[in-house]
């Protein structure tokens, strides 16, 4: 396991009989205390499918129940109960007949990263653009990998907006995603949008995209709830 940001860690799990998954799917992780008390939560898979390795990227929710354990107590060699993969809707489509727009807010980038990785692994030619809204450059998950992917192009474009704090010399966007920003960033020939983040973020982005004329049925949404963690 390794840190992605101050609040976010990735856990690489070795699952011997893993059946494979589709990018965008999640798993349920169940923890059991020594007196039998159990708690379970869903986490998006961050890795592309292939082999027994499943990576989960987990943001610590301070008053959460499972995420503080996974990000602070767990260490290499621990075993977890997993259920999954789950979900057949918010999943990468290698042939959407047009461009794909990935819009992530905060840790909502996790299932989108699985799609970017799966796209690269498949050598999919689908024109794809990621719009990633984070509070600051330090809060950008997968920063180095996204920077490398951005430089290698091949039909993948990455646009950041940093809503609270920007590094010196920042030339990118520095505000919350609004309709004007979307009108500048959304691909032309847009076939499918995957939108993931906290509820206020996805509500605002979805409403703006519909207002710009994008078909509601072509906007797939996954929400990261504010509770529990």
């Amino acid at each position, binding site marked *: 396991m390794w840190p992605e940001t101050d609040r976010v860690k990735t856990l690489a799990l070795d699952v011997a009989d893993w059946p494979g998954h589709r990018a965008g799917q999640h798993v349920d992780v169940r923890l059991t*205390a020594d007196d039998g008390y*159990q*708690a379970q939560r869903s986490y998006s898979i961050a890795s592309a499918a292939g082999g027994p390795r499943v990576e989960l990227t987990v943001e610590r929710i301070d008053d959460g129940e499972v995420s503080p354990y996974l990000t602070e*107590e767990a260490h290499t060699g621990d075993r977890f109960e997993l259920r999954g993969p789950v979900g057949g809707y918010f999943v990468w489509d290698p042939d959407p007949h047009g461009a794909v727009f990935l819009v992530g807010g905060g840790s909502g980038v996790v299932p989108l990263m699985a799609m970017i990785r799966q796209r690269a692994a498949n050598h999919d030619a689908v024109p794809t653009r990621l719009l990633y809204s984070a509070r600051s450059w330090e809060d950008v998950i997968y920063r180095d990998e996204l920077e490398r992917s951005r430089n290698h192009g091949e039909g993948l474009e990455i646009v950041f907006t940093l809503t609270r704090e920007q590094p010196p010399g920042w030339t990118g966007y520095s505000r919350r995603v609004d309709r004007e920003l979307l009108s500048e960033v959304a691909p032309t020939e847009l076939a499918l949008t995957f939108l993931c983040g906290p509820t206020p973020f996805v509500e605002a982005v979805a409403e703006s995209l519909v207002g710009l004329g994008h078909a509601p049925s072509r906007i797939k949404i996954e929400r990261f709830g504010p509770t529990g963690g």
Partner: protein
Amino acid sequence: MPIISRGFKGRRRDDAPRDRVPPGQYVTDDFPVLSAGPTPHTPLDQWDFTIVGEVDERRRWTWDELRALPSETITVDISCVTKWTKLDTIWEGVPVDTLLEGVETSAEYLTAFCDGGYTTNLPLADVTDGQAWVAYGYDGEPLEPEHGGPARLLVPHLYFWKSAKWVRGLRLTATDEPGFWESNGYHNYGDPWKEQRYWGD
């Protein structure tokens, strides 16, 4: 045997009555939002609720007609498949029994259909006898759009994806036809007390 998570204590809520919290759920005071697409906003003068399919005659209510039907205020616990349970939620709505009154049908199932294209399937027997409502009020206020307003189905004894948001009608069917989540990996029936979350549960 479950794997014991070394050092895991958990955040137990001793005030949560175990006989009201289904297995694998935790109690929240928030009201999280879950939906797979954008929130629809249908103007009330274009809104209606219909009962169609295997029925003697199609039934239809405009918004004003639905609101004029006798309503009930109900207090129920709700459980979402994403693991949260919310106790003592207060709703106002029309019992589905009222809407089905006088409807002649041989159907045993139904599909609730919604603005935005969402569907969910239920046995007819699960929405009758005071088990389901078309709800338009929550906690004394009109139901907010992100929670399914103007009206959503309320079937509190099943996981909450069965309580379809933005519901526009019921299609009665002879056969059981899996809806949106039921076709995408989630359990066909969804009893929280049996933890029927996913295919195979």
